[in-house]
């Protein structure tokens, strides 16, 4: 069924409420998205009719649950254009990235090898690499940003050398909104023989991503940022690399044979999915991906671009407001981070909340980027497919109100 983006808002029950006497204007979609009724229904339906532990039971209910769970794996594979056995379920982006760093990179890295990341990384694609570097004696090097908040590809080219073993970067910055040229960056890394790990947390759900086209080695994203439940995420890895990669967690379900001293693991993806997985959440993720597909990427992209363009233009007109990252256009995704001169981001967010406008204030789990930008905190408005121009108007009006209140 093809759905219409203009009425998509009605599919999200949570949006139909007042906050502090004002209509809820939810602009913290980069932190987590709201869930459409179909996702909520999928969770309820699973618990009401299909709940059983997967892979183990021989009875009908267990078979049904297993089929549903494995069906979502197939669905995710289609969604990102990968093979089914290249899709691992995890707890979220953070877990996915940790598994690559600890289960794959740590085994391969030698002292003085180099890992390249970028200054715009979320802590979840930064701290694991820092830890692995400390544990292996590898060096951690950074791609810098230019004055538009875009990665400096010339400097990246200079960093790359035969000692570079891993290059990890975000597809979309959760602070600057920058859409990075990930395909080109992947090619550059592969040219020196390095593995490429992409943090897709802010990309999936906003536009289509294609593993075969990108040719990256690993790609991570979270269910809760693509209108699905919390507690479920995805790690994509190339089949031959997953065969080499070690599990980070051990236990039930991931084994072929356990003897007193040794264990033989199942092949991927099962060898990574130890214990009882978030089955209901995986099924909810499947419903979310179906929902996105029914809206269609071109409608979602066009809609979000129109919102971000309007917001950018109007924010730009506010005196004393600084926007971080690229101008609205092909390199900016659906979020805008800014500061209002003379008002701390927390105070901005509190005033906005009294107007029903939910935004994020703080360092957005990107402290090295804050240090690079020379600020301790910023305010971020991030859009999802259900936001509309009225939300943009409310954001702008609330900011004007904030300026008046603090007399700046």
């Amino acid at each position, binding site marked *: 069924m093809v759905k219409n983006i203009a009425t998509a808002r009605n599919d999200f029950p949570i949006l139909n409420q007042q906050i502090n006497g*004002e209509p809820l204007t939810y602009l913290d979609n980069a932190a987590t998205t709201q869930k459409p009724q179909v996702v909520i229904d999928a969770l309820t339906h699973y618990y009401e009719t299909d709940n059983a532990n997967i892979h183990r039971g021989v009875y009908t209910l267990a078979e049904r649950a297993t089929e549903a769970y494995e069906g979502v794996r197939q669905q995710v594979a289609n969604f990102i254009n990968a093979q089914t056995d290249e899709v691992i379920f995890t707890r979220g982006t953070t877990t996915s990235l940790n598994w690559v760093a600890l289960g794959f990179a740590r085994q391969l890295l030698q002292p003085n090898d180099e890992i390249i990341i970028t200054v715009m990384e979320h802590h979840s694609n930064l701290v694991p690499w820092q830890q692995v570097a400390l544990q292996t004696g590898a060096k951690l090097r950074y791609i810098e940003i230019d004055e538009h908040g875009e990665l400096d590809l010339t400097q990246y080219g200079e960093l790359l050398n035969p000692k570079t073993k891993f290059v990890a970067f975000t597809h979309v910055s959760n602070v600057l909104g920058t859409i990075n040229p990930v395909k080109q960056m992947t090619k550059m890394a592969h040219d020196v023989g390095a593995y490429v790990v992409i943090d897709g947390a802010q990309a999936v759900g906003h536009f289509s991503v294609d593993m075969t086209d990108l040719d990256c080695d690993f790609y991570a994203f979270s269910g809760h940022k693509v209108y699905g439940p919390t507690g479920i995420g995805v790690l994509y890895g190339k089949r031959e690399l997953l065969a080499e990669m070690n599990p980070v967690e051990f236990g039930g379900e991931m084994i072929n044979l356990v003897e007193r001293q040794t264990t033989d693991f199942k092949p991927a993806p099962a060898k990574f999915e130890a214990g009882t997985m978030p089955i209901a959440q995986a099924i909810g993720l499947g419903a979310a991906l179906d929902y996105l597909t029914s809206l269609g990427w071109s409608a979602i992209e066009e809609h979000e671009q129109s919102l971000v363009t309007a917001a950018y233009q109007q924010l730009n007109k506010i005196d004393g407001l600084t926007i971080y990252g690229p101008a609205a256009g092909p390199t900016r995704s659906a979020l805008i981070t800014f500061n209002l001169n003379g008002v701390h981001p927390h105070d901005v967010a*509190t005033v906005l909340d009294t107007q029903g406008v939910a935004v994020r204030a*703080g360092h957005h789990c990107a402290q090295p980027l804050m240090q690079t930008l020379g600020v*301790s*905190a910023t305010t971020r408005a991030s859009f999802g497919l259900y936001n509309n121009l009225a939300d943009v108007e409310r954001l702008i009006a609330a900011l004007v109100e904030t300026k008046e209140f603090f007399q700046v």
Partner: protein
Amino acid sequence: MNLGNLSDLYRQLILDHAQHPHHHGELASADQTVTLNNPTCGDVIKLQVELKDNQVADLAFSGDGCSISQASASMMTDLVKGQSLPEVQHEIATFLEMLMGNNDADEDVDALGDAAVLATVVKFPARIKCATLAWKALEQAIGEANNHE
């Protein structure tokens, strides 16, 4: 627009302290320095304290934070400068209790001076940590001094 609640949080007194904080800067005579941050938002406070004769002889703070954290630090420094350590410890406890919403001891709260107005922050749970940051830093500074005796 519903700005009613806001003037509760941002009383003029709070805004005045935030815009023109007292005892803001560095303290050359400090014998204790504590740097605390609020990991959820990145606010940082550096509190420097000079302790003499079982008293807070002088103190100063610097760092970066929202108006609530800056005002709270400013009010706290006004209050405790020149007071004895037991007195200060009692006030810290009263302040932290007040921000947890347990202020049965109203007379104690009155003794907090300007800082008593921060009681309204309780209505904004997301901002409580902003208000308590400076006080926790002072608690730690005094605690560390005691440990070294």
